């Protein structure tokens, strides 16, 4: 490009703010919704960032996780704090909900103490103004030592001014320390000063010493920086801190962290009183009336269930149409490619492996995008907080947060978007627990296996059998959840202290950008891996090829083609099916199926079942088509195929209703499909994923074994 590019000045700008302050919409308005989504190093806290280059600047915007403070107690808080401490952004844009200054300014005071440059954004200004709030900008700006801009993020109002102020600040940022001491009252200030002095005396002096001092008195975790200190120095500081705490507790009559909190609060109140005239209106007045209905003792749950039904239906029923178009398009395209290229290994790899693989990646897209549109509407409207409020008592039975209901429910449609939806949960513990339980929700792919077997063996009561399987999955989730909380997740429950944002009309803008972003995350972070996994699985299913078939299928088919006999066509179809079955049995997957057959024998499964379970790892509905191939019905069967039902029921196959039910139980429990595993790995890491799969395989075997053997015992065999 041109030489100018080299002259551009590069900056990093971080956006910080409370949850629900509209930070993300300001970020999107600033960057044009071009966020790259990744994780902060070492943790699964989401990092959204975007690079915006103009004529003069090259700015990297980072959207920090929404936090109420920087006390570093939660993962989100420490990710935000570490970014500010270690990545040293040139500027922190602090987004504030103008309708709730008192709570939002807490974070602001902490940023001030950390010595970063702050640009204050009073967001959702329209709402605050409607309530009659007025602000003396000059005074507020003077007291908080930062410029102030008013915006309405989700409408893009005030962005011009924000950009202008931002550029001006970036261009004048030459000196580095902006630490502004806030006063906590005479008693605490004196102790802060003393501790700060002993901090200055050590080798740990890269950050404002007062900030260290405040943190030590507030007891908000031991700072990592202290690890680098000599033991003597550390002991010095700690004994000073202990003395100071004692004095504060003596004089002020409460624990030092409370006293410091009070001091901060007083400071914020003084600032607000001096610079802000509160409005007379209550912005929650409308929400309050609405909440009387939304959280009503009798109407609350029906309304909630209606919204859940609506989201589920649009995601999975409406989402089926675009998914089918994608499927058809891919099949047509692969057919076209196959017709154009010579037959052979490479063509097979391209058509079945790669193009088929792309299809298996894309097929999730409609579900994911619609679901996240729905979640965005729930969050943006404020209903999510209400839903969590009424569901909390029930979900606590599973040891989960009220919000976890949504990902669990979505699991019944497809586990992949459900796992992605756990991002709405705040704590890592809740996310891991929820993700480990989601696979017990019978996804729609498993339903096709249920339908096949239920209609083959339980014709009269197919509905009941399928319902029993869904119920079994839920009951097992409850039991496993209980067990996990008694063993691995024994740490105290995460507090359920949430704020109710006002109910708002959701905006199209927010919904669409959320939907695109999640779609992109899926394609970028999981699509590639799912594609590779699909190609590998295809390979394992197609190779090695049979060199010597048990009979000369091709020759027989060729000669039958010449024959005028009317039954020749049937005979050809039969030979083809037999050949396909021999292919599968000979492939790696088929061999693996034979290897696991003895393990599955105590469960009553025949080898065809073993092989199709192995192929089910690719996707659960593949179990059905594998059955079709192995029972020599042909490739193109689905769960309603009558010839497959007949073949399964054939007594010669040895499958009894008891075995059929045991098999379905196994399909419900054994392992999620490869795409789910990839989603799990992304959200909770390879270790938890491996744990989840192993636990499920063991559980599946044990439960199925118990069902089968008990069934035999009481004579159901």
């Amino acid at each position: 490009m041109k030489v100018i590019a080299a002259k551009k000045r590069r900056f990093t700008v971080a956006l910080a703010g409370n949850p629900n302050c509209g930070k993300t919409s300001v970020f999107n308005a600033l960057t044009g919704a071009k966020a790259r989504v990744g994780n902060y190093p070492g943790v699964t806290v989401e990092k959204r960032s975007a690079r915006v280059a103009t004529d003069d600047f090259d700015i990297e915007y980072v959207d920090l996780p929404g936090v109420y403070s920087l006390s570093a107690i939660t993962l989100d808080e420490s990710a935000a704090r570490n970014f500010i401490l270690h990545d040293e952004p040139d500027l922190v844009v602090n987004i504030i909900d103008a309708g709730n200054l008192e709570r939002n300014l807490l974070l602001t005071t902490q940023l001030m103490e950390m010595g970063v440059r702050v640009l204050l954004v009073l967001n959702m200004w329209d709402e605050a103004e409607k309530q009659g709030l007025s602000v003396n900008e000059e005074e507020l700006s003077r007291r908080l030592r930062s410029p102030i801009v008013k915006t309405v993020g989700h409408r893009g109002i005030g962005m011009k001014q924000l950009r202008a102020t931002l550029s001006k600040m970036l261009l004048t940022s030459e000196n580095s320390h902006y630490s502004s001491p806030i006063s906590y009252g005479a008693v605490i200030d004196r102790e802060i000063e003393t501790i700060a002095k002993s901090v200055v005396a050590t080798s740990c002096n890269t950050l404002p010493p007062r900030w260290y001092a405040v943190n030590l008195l507030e007891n908000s975790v031991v700072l990592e920086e202290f690890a680098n200190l000599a033991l003597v120095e550390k002991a010095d500081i700690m004994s000073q801190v202990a003395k100071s705490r004692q004095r504060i507790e003596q004089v002020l009559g409460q624990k030092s962290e409370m006293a410091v909190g009070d001091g901060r609060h007083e400071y914020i109140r003084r600032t607000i009183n001096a610079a802000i005239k509160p409005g007379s209106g209550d912005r929650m007045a409308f929400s309050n009336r609405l909440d009387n209905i939304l959280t009503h003792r009798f109407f609350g749950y029906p309304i909630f269930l209606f919204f859940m039904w609506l989201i589920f239906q649009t995601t999975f029923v409406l989402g089926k149409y675009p998914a089918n178009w994608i499927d058809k398009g891919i099949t047509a395209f692969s057919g076209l490619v196959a017709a154009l290229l010579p037959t052979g290994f490479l063509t097979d790899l391209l058509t079945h492996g790669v193009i088929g693989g792309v299809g298996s990646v894309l097929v999730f897209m409609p579900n994911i995008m619609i679901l996240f549109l729905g979640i965005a509407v729930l969050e943006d409207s404020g209903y999510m907080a209400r839903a969590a409020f009424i569901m909390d008592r029930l979900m606590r039975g599973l040891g989960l947060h009220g919000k976890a209901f949504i990902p669990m429910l979505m699991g019944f449609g497809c586990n992949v978007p459900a796992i992605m939806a756990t991002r709405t949960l705040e704590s890592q513990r809740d996310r891991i627990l929820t993700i480990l339980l989601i696979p017990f929700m019978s996804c729609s792919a498993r339903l096709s296996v249920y339908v096949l077997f239920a209609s083959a063996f339980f014709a009269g009561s197919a509905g009941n059998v399928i319902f029993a399987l869904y119920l079994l999955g839920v009951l097992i989730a409850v039991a496993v959840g209980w067990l996990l909380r008694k063993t691995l997740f024994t740490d105290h429950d995460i507090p359920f202290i949430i704020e109710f944002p006002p109910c708002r009309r959701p905006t199209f803008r927010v919904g669409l950008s959320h939907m695109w972003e999640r779609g992109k995350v899926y394609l970028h972070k999981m699509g590639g891996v799912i594609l590779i996994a699909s190609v590998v699985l295809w390979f394992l299913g197609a190779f090695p090829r049979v060199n010597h078939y048990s009979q000369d299928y091709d020759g027989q088919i060729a000669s039958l083609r010449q024959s005028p006999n009317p039954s020749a066509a049937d005979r050809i179809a039969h030979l083809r099916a037999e050949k396909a079955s021999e292919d599968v049995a000979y492939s790696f997957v088929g061999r693996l199926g034979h290897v696991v057959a003895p393990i599955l024998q105590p469960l009553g499964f025949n080898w065809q079942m073993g092989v199709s379970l192995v192929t089910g790892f690719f996707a659960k509905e593949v179990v059905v088509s594998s059955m079709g191939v192995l029972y020599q019905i042909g490739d193109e069967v689905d769960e309603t195929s009558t010839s497959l039902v007949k073949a399964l029921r054939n007594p010669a196959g040895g499958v009894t209703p008891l075995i059929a039910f045991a098999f379905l139980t196994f399909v419900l429990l054994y392992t999620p499909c490869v795409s789910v595993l990839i989603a799990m790995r992304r959200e909770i890491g390879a270790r938890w994923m491996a744990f989840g799969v192993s636990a499920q395989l063991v559980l599946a075997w044990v439960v199925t074994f118990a069902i089968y053997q008990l069934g035999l015992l009481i004579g159901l065999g």
Partner: protein
Amino acid sequence: MAERTMTLADLRRGETAKIIDIHAEGITRQRLLNFGFRRGEVVKIVRLAPLADPIELTIAGGYISLRRSEASLISVEK
């Protein structure tokens, strides 16, 4: 009965009380402090969830939901 101090969990819908002390520890205390729970602050119970737990209250201009178990860590007087 009279000996035991009253906590937030004892209040009924619509009742107002003043916070005397907060007995929570760790992350719960931090969260409470973040939301403006402090000595001397006045809270009002707005409503209860359908199963009477959690409870919703107003404090420092915000609407907050907490579980009964958390509310019982906050002693109050009417």
